[in-house]
Each structure stands twice: as C-alpha cells, then as structure tokens.
C-alpha cells in the first residue's frame, strides 16, 4: 500500500497544474451559475451558453483527458515504459491508478459540497446531488479507461477517442440502415433494461480490459475484448426486447374489494347533444368513498357499469381511465374544503341502454378499480412580476406575459427559478421531486378571491445543470375553460401579484377495488339534464 501511495503521490504531483486548472473550471462554472441565477431576462442566454460550455464541454472533456493523464506516465501498452523495468507489480500499479481514479471520481463532490451547503441543501438533496455527480463522473471515467489502457501516450489517446466516435457513428449508421423501425421508440421499461445491459457490458468490459493490461500487458487481447463488448452491445441494441423489471404488483388487488366500500350517490345524465343525434349522452355517476381518509383522493383506473333489466337481459360498459380525477381534490385541498370523500366517473351511455331507460327501471351496479393518492402541498411560493431578482428568496419570478395562441385561450408564463435546488427529473423546477412516479400539479391560487387556476402545461424551456443545481426556465400554461378548473380574472396582472404558485404532489398510497349498486331507477325524460337519485 505504501508503494501504491508512493506512485499516487508521484502522479498527483505531476498532474497538479492540470488538476488545479480543472478545479478552477469547476469553480468558475459554479460562479457563473450563481451569476446566471440572478441575471435579468436580457442576459440569461449569454450566461446560459457560457455556463453550458463550461459545464457540458470543458469539464467533461478535461475529466476525460485526466483519465489518460493518470495513465500517461506509466503506460501499460508500451514496452519501453519506465515502470515495467522497475520492481513495480502490475497489481500495485493498478491499485495506485485505481486510487487516483477514485479520487478523480470523488473530487467534484469534495469541491462542490461547500457550494451546495451554501445554497441550503438538506441531507436528502446533498445525497441526491452527490449521487448524480458520481454517476456523471463515473460515466466519463468508464468511457475513458478502456481507451487509456490501450494508448501509449496522450496523442494516441486522442486518436483512439476519435476512432471510437467514428466507430460509434458507423455502428449507428449500420443500425439505421438495417433497422427501418429505428424511429419507433422502445417502450421506456425496455429502453431502461437495455441501458442497464449496455452499462453492465461496458463496465465489465472496462474492468476486464484494465485487468488484462495491468496484469498481462496484452494489448491485442484487450482490443479483442473491446471489440467483443462493442459487438455484444450492438447486438443487444438490435435485438433487445425485454423488460427486466421485477414483476410489478397488480394495479388493483381484488382481495381489497371488500375492504373498500363504495356507496352509490347519483347518476347525472347530460343532455343529448342537439344536432348530433348519433352521439351518445354522457352519464356522470358519483359514489361516496367512506374508506378514504382525510387528504386522500382516488384516481379511477376503470369502471364497469352493469345495467340489468327485469327480463334478465343486461348491458355492460367500461369507462376508460379518468386522467384528471385528482384535480378537484387538489383544488379542495388548496381551498381547505373538507367534504365527504367522493368518487366520480363519467361514461357515454350505450344507445340501447339509453333507449330502454325511458321505459323500465334498471338495476345498476358498478365495479370500480383505481389508485388511492395522498395529496400534499409540497411548496407554495409567492409570485413576483418583472425583473426583480429573487436569487436566494423562495419564490418564482414571472418575467413577462405572452398571450398564447388564440385557440388555446390561454396564457403562457415563463418562470425563472429563483432558488437553485437540486432537481432530478424535469419538470421539478422549484422543489425536489419526491418520487419519480408521483404526479404533480401546479396551481395559481389567490386567497383574496379564492380562485384557483390549474397549469395545464409545465415545460422546461431552458435547463442547465450546474454541479447538479438545475437552473431552469419553466413555462407554465394556465388555460381557463370547462376542462380546467378556474378562469382568468379580468385584471390578471394585479391578480397574479396577490397569488401564490402551489405545487401539489399526489403520493401513491395504494390501490382499491370496490363495488356499488343502486336501487332500480327509471329515466323519465332525456331532453334535458336530469338527475336521478335513487
């Protein structure tokens, strides 16, 4: 170990100026990011690009080159290397170089940690930011190591890097030519499992190549291993079609049916659209869900509506998933309304059922399956209009209003992030995303008039990771209308000043499966909206 440390110290001393430069670039990127976070609208793009070049070009390229720098003084594929003729075992040299690479891997965290702390990261954010940084750095190192161990000097390393890029493009070209279906995207789960397969292949290949070179110095065999790894990866890209995720639990567990009571409340028939005689009318049914606890809401996955007539004939219809079922519950949560937990479904009434409902009573029952969500307001921040910097404050800055396209009847509000916080997944732009699968909803809420506007589009216009702090220009689109809760006030500007931006996360809290039935009822008229409450 002492001799390995001796070799490490030698390399650290040799690389001291390059490491210093690398640290300066990293710190410079952080400083630029800080400036950028406080900049007014006009300067955003300039700083964005400068910081982008620092962070996305300089640092990765320097880290990539540093991997070769670590190997450069003791190349493992050069028979004229100094170390080979000295009493240095390959394993000892490998230990020394691995130690340096680990240091290179950890160094960004050590340098950035004070900056994270200065920006108020909590333990969770620190760990996520560190993990993110380690992943990025590991990818760079693992890409560079195989090239470094077959390069006898820096210029060869550059050449091999260029060949690798050319080879990658060539393989991609072959893939495109041989795979007309390339444009059809893979399912996310398949893509993810394929990514893991490729990563595992490359990591195993990189470790094997490093081992062969340091232990045996057989560059030809190492190159053969590399070629096999690339071919195996390419073959996987061509033919991979498996989702390796562990078996997902059933969305709905029928076992829970008895433990989740539902009580039929009402069925509301919307009028048959005038002039569209072929279009079926919509029925909205409402159930009480006494099994729900405070703060919980349901998302209906499916509802099977069962209509049974006196002669024993029956009709069934299936309601597709209701996407925005949680929004009324979110609004209720924001407004502090505590009503009895209810569940709504809507479906198009089949024509034969519609026709028969007017003549005789029907026995109605429903089998409802869905998800239970626990709603939580994870952030509520004041809104500031204009160029005022809120660099370290908690808030959003609405820079300007843009009347959106007419047919959307909406409003687009670009919002600058004001407090840099680690954000892992877009579009979590002002608070860490609690869990990848939990849906998020954004609302503008004015307490004075109690009006709530829900954002229908949340999009990142420009995002920039500065040492895992994500600076973003998010766009929220608020569209009033029947489909969305809330409507624009007349004086939007003054209304916005009094509003807060609220983010609600629906934490998954389980699934349910319940049945409910109604006493037989008969529809007496269908020309207008009619509510039948049995």
């Amino acid at each position, binding site marked *: 170990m*002492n*001799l390995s440390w001796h070799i490490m110290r030698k390399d650290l001393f040799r690389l001291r100026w390059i490491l210093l430069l690398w640290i300066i670039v990293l710190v410079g990127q952080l400083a630029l990011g800080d400036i950028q976070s406080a900049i007014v609208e006009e300067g955003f793009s300039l700083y964005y690009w400068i910081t982008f070049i620092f962070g996305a070009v300089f640092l990765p390229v320097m880290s990539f080159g540093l991997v070769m720098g670590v190997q450069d003084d003791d190349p493992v594929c050069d*028979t*004229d290397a100094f170390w080979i*003729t000295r009493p240095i075992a390959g394993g000892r040299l490998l230990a020394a170089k691995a130690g340096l690479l680990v240091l290179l891997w950890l160094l960004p965290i050590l340098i950035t940690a004070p900056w994270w702390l200065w920006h108020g990261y909590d333990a969770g954010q620190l760990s996520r930011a560190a993990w993110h940084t380690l992943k990025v750095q590991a990818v760079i190192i693992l890409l560079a190591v195989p090239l470094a161990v077959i390069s006898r000097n820096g210029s060869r390393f550059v050449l091999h890097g260029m060949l690798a890029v050319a080879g990658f493009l060539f393989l991609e070209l072959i893939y495109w030519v041989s795979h007309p279906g390339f444009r059809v995207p893979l399912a996310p789960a398949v893509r993810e499992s394929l990514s893991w397969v490729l990563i595992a292949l490359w990591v195993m290949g990189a470790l094997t190549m490093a081992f062969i070179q340091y232990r045996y110095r057989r560059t030809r065999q190492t190159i053969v291993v590399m070629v096999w790894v690339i071919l195996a990866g390419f073959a996987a890209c061509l033919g991979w079609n498996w989702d390796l995720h562990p078996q997902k639990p059933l969305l709905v567990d029928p076992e829970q049916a008895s433990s989740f009571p539902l009580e039929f409340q009402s069925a509301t028939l919307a009028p048959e659209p005038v002039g569209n005689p072929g279009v079926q009318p919509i029925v909205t049914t409402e159930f009480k869900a006494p099994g729900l606890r405070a703060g919980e809401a349901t998302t209906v996955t499916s509802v099977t509506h069962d209509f049974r007539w006196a002669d024993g004939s029956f009709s069934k219809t299936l309601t597709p998933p209701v996407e925005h079922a949680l929004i009324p519950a979110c609004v209720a949560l924001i407004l502090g309304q505590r009503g009895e937990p209810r569940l709504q479904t809507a479906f198009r009434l089949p024509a034969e059922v519609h026709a028969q409902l007017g003549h005789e009573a029907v026995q109605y029952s429903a089998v409802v399956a869905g998800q239970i969500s626990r709603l939580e307001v994870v952030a509520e921040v004041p809104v500031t209009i204009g160029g005022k910097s809120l660099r370290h404050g908690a808030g959003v800055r609405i820079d300007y209003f843009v009347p959106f396209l007419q047919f959307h009847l909406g409003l687009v509000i670009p919002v600058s992030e004001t407090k840099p916080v680690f954000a892992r997944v877009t579009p979590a732009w002002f608070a860490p995303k609690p869990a990848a699968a939990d849906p998020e909803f954004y609302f503008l809420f004015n307490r004075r008039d109690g009006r709530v506007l829900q954002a229908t589009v949340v999009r990142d216009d420009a995002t920039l990771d500065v040492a895992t702090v994500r600076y973003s220009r998010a766009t929220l689109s608020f569209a009033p209308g029947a489909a969305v809760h809330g409507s624009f006030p007349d004086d939007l500007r003054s209304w916005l000043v009094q509003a807060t931006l609220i983010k609600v996360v629906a934490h998954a809290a389980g699934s349910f499966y319940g049945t409910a039935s109604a006493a037989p009822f008969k529809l007496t008229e269908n020309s207008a909206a009619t509510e039948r409450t049995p």
Partner: protein
Amino acid sequence: MNIIETHQLCRKYGRTDALRGLDLSVPAGNIFALIGANGAGKTTAIKVLMNLLEPTSGDARVLGVDSPKLGPRERQQIGYVSENQKLPDWMTVRQLLDYCRPFYPTWDRELEARLLREFELPPHRKLKHLSRGMGMKAALLSSLAYRPKLLVLDEPFSGLDPLVRDEFIRGILEVSQQSEWTIFISSHDINEVEQLADWVGLIDNGRMDFAEPIETLQARFRRIEVTLPGNEAGLSAPPASWLAAEREGNFVRIIESRFSDASLEQYRRERFAGAEVAVKPMTLREIFVALARVNRAQYSKSAA
C-alpha cells in the same frame, strides 16, 4: 552458474522472425557483450529477457527465473538502461532518484551521492532538459544505486559523444570492480564493448553465432598475410575455418577463425611452401566486420 540462459528462443513480429532459436548463456560475474548488426535481434532478445515482450516459443531464464515470470523481487536485483527507455522526463534528477528509492530495499544512498557527483549530474534539472548523454547517465545512476546483481544495458552508447561514452564506461567499470555482478550489454559499438567486456556473443539474424570470452575469441582469430614467391596460390579447397581469402597478385590475405600454431605450421607446409607468412592479431571490430561480411554473403547466396 549462468545468470541468463535461453534455449531455442523465438520471437515473431507478425510474420517477421526477430529471434530464431536463440541459445545464449551468460555466466555470472562477467561483463557480457551481445554484439550484432542493426536488426540482428539484440533489442528483442533483451526485451524478452526483461519480460517486456513475450517469447513466441522457447525458454528464457534470468536469475534462475523464467523471464515471463520475472516479478518485483527479481527486478529489485536487475538494473536496466536502454536507449529506448522512456524516462519520466518531467522529473528532475533528484525527483527520479527519490521516486525510485523506495522500490529497492538495497538502495545505497552513499553510492547514489557518489555517482551523482562523479557523473556530474545537476540534481535539480529536469530530465527533459538534460542532454542525451546526461539522461543516460541519470538512468544508469538510478539503476546502479541499488547494486543490482545483473545490469542490462541496451545500446547504451548510441548517440553519445566520445567523452560521455568514456565517462559512462568508467562509471560502469568503477562500480563493477566493487561489486560481484554481471553486466549484459548489447551494442554495435564494438570499440566500446572491447574496453568493457570479458565475454562477447555475436547475434546474427536472430541466432547466436558464438559466445565466448573475448580472450579466447581474439586468440583464435588471426589475419594471415602471405607473400607468395610465384603465382601458385594454394587457395584451392580452403578449410572451413577460413572466413575470407583474398588475393592481389602474389599477396594473399586470409582470415582464420580457428588459429593455432599447429594449423599455421600445416598451412606453411601444405599450401604456402616457401612463402613469407605473417600472422597478425585482430581487434574485435575486425572480427565482427569479417563475420558480418561472411554472413551477408551467405544470405545473399541463399536468397538467390
């Protein structure tokens, strides 16, 4: 005891045979010079011996260990200086010595200081700023200071000016007199080798032509100059030991590779009766040139 031994050692580079069954024995405690023309296989042989290259076939043993198994323990007893070796030229001489020292339990700091003085090496100058000769001396110093049992020098004189060569040789000789060690040196600089070596081996086209003490070699090689009384040459059916026999008028020059008084007497009697025969000793360089010519002629013939 032989400190280096090879048996039928072969090494190929692609389709090119660099070594073709090399049989070599280097006895311990001697300075052994491996000489040969450029491309004869000297450097390849040394690289295989030092486990820098793997042999294609055959055996090579150094310090009693198979060369592919040479490990740190053996390398602590081997010094290696080569013209091709890439020194860490960003280091100063002092840093090089500081870096090398912990790897050798037998490192002698007094010897290091003495050699540093004698070689007149500037300790704080970077290796890349040293002249070629100074660089070689720095490499030699870093290989001598731990008193290795075996010092391997691969073309150490190439590119050095005569003054530095002398200093280099003096340094080696001075230390070699103090320690019981073996020096294995490859070179095509015959004059320098002659000053240093006790043993000499000639490698040609990947094979050993011979390996023997220089004294024996020089004793058996003679240039015989014959001034004939008439035109009768006596050169028909020359013996195999004649490497060359040239005639200019009534003057004949022969290079004899197995000279003895008896053979001389036999030539006088049977081939050059009445002629004036002068026998002259040959330098190593002359022997080498004569052998090289013979070998080249043989290759030309076989190629044709």
